């Protein structure tokens, strides 16, 4: 941790007159070359954190360390960080090349070197030949690329991206998602991006920091976050799932109201209350009742979604959500009696580390 490239320590931001801090003692760190996603609903403080790292907002307390050096007191224009704004913020009175060259001019880089680096930056984002265009002559995706080139040409310590894909249409978004990931990998720049879109975060980031109400809920790899959520918030914010409250009845067995005992993998003291979650795609159709973790009920609702079929199955007082692959033989109909089963290792014990 101590040798990590970027270290955020106990960062707090309380706006004047606000009851609660917008960012409340947040700490995390990134090794060099990592791409971290700050994920959370709007108003969770993720953008405030990004802007504090950039130097656009002054933190109330805490430290932002780059290679061990606290940069909190360094003004924005000396921090040497690249930022890609949500609306790109390209200078409308300059050409694409002038936009990209701006940061180099501020660094008093000579003309010849400037032109060379601008050309390379344009190549990097596949905008070769677009240098003389006006910003208004670019499409949304091209503006995005230009903004990325502009922030990377200065060889920043850290690349910050604020909702980088939110202004693009769906098809372009997928394309730029891979593109940004690719550019980041090729340049090896340490990057932090802010998003409210979990697909974006899961697919682009090496690790995710999930935020809620100013606090960091959990930080981990996409798999850890998805499969082993540590808090209720993370479990419900990322992906869908059916939640169960119960009591630990024995080692790896929980008694849940109105259902057969639920087996899970994980450490929990006998008699203690637990919260468990099953992801919809972990529930499978079972041949017959009687296996462990099998629930029989009536199909109440069916949504056909192409590759998967989403079922809502009524089991006593509970509604289980299951995603079945549509290629799996005969599909259940509304009103059918079905038996669903889940492997104990696919039952997530919320709030505990993986066993």
């Amino acid at each position: 941790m101590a040798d990590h490239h970027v270290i955020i320590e106990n960062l707090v931001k309380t706006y004047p007159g606000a009851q609660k801090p917008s960012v409340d003692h947040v700490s995390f760190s990134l090794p060099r070359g990592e791409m971290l996603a700050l994920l959370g609903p709007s108003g969770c403080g993720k953008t405030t954190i990004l802007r504090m790292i950039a130097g656009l907002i002054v933190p109330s307390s805490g430290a932002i360390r780059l290679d061990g050096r606290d940069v909190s007191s360094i003004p924005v224009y000396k921090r040497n960080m690249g930022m890609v704004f949500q609306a790109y913020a390209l200078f409308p009175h300059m050409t694409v090349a002038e936009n990209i060259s701006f940061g180099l001019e501020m660094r008093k880089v000579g003309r010849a070197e400037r032109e060379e680096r601008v050309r390379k930056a344009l190549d990097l984002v596949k905008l070769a030949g677009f240098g003389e265009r006006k910003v208004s002559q670019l499409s949304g995706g091209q503006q995005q690329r230009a903004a990325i080139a502009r922030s990377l040409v200065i060889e920043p310590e850290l690349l910050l991206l604020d909702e980088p894909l939110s202004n693009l249409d769906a098809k372009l978004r997928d394309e730029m998602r891979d593109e940004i990931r690719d550019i980041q990998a090729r340049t090896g720049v340490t990057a932090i991006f802010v998003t409210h879109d979990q697909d974006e975060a899961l697919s682009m980031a090496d690790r995710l920091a999930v935020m809620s109400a100013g606090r960091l809920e959990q930080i981990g790899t996409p798999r850890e976050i998805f499969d082993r959520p540590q808090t209720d918030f993370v479990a419900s914010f990322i992906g869908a799932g059916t939640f169960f409250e119960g009591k630990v009845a024995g080692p790896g067995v929980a008694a849940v109201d109105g259902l057969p005992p639920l087996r899970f993998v994980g450490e929990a003291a006998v008699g203690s209350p637990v919260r468990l979650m099953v992801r919809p795609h972990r529930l499978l159709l079972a041949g017959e009742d009687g296996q462990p973790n099998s629930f029989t009920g009536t199909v109440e609702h069916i949504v056909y979604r192409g590759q998967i079929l989403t079922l809502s199955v009524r089991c006593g007082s509970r509604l289980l959500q299951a995603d079945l692959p549509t290629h799996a033989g005969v599909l259940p109909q509304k009103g059918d009696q079905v038996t669903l089963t889940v492997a104990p290792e696919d039952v997530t014990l919320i709030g505990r580390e993986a066993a």
Partner: protein
Amino acid sequence: MSAAVTAPAGGAPAASRGILLMLLLPGLVALVITFLLPLLWLFRASFASSAVGALSGGDWTSEAYTTVLFDPFYWRVAWNTLVLGFNVAIFAVILSYPIALFLARTQSRFRGVLTALAVAPLLTSSVVRTYGWMVILGDRGVINSTLQALSLTDGVIRLTNNSFGATVALIEILMPYAILAMLSGFGRLNVQLEEAAAMLGANRLKVFTRIVLPLSLPGVLTAALLVFVLAISSFVTPRLMGGGRVFVLGTEVFNEATVTLNWPLAAALSVMLLVLFSSIILLYQRALRALEV
């Protein structure tokens, strides 16, 4: 089949064009009666030999233009007018720019109130505000009496009845227009662009000279043009603050039309003013296009 489909489609625009023309007609008629005809009459009057001739048709003569073009007095008047216009435009723009910039960038919830306050002087007639300036700048006005009471000056410093007074009063009177024009021309200013420039290594001065200033130039240019045009066509303020000693095109047109009753000369002077306007506006449009392309 296809003809049946295309026929109504082809007829529709013609019909709507007809409706458009009908809708435009009242406005056009009003413009022709109140603007175009008087303008033509003004043009005709400037070539008449007398006021009577101007009304009844009469003969054509370029006498008025000969006077305007060959009498050095009118060249001085034109020059005075231009100098007044430029001075007023430059100072009104310089003084209004920080105010407009503040109003455009502020996040304050009082922004609306502040904007209203900045343009509130427009609610009073410029005659009243000119008299206000006479009270301040007059020979026995606030400034002179204060200076004398403090024994800083012996005599009276002449601040009115000259072009200085007229310029000062016009600057203040036209500033709200400058602020409004700038605010409407600052559309491309955006705090995020300033942040982006700062992220790229620009300090506050560089952010201003490289981002804010160039992006606000269209607004500045619009404001300068508006103030200039209003200043060179002003009559009340130069007349009152100048005390009859400041000769600009506005006051001369008034003099020739109502005092000397030389209508052809008044008309010729008006045409000159019109030519001045048009050439300035043409220059402005060129400059604006150069800025925005």
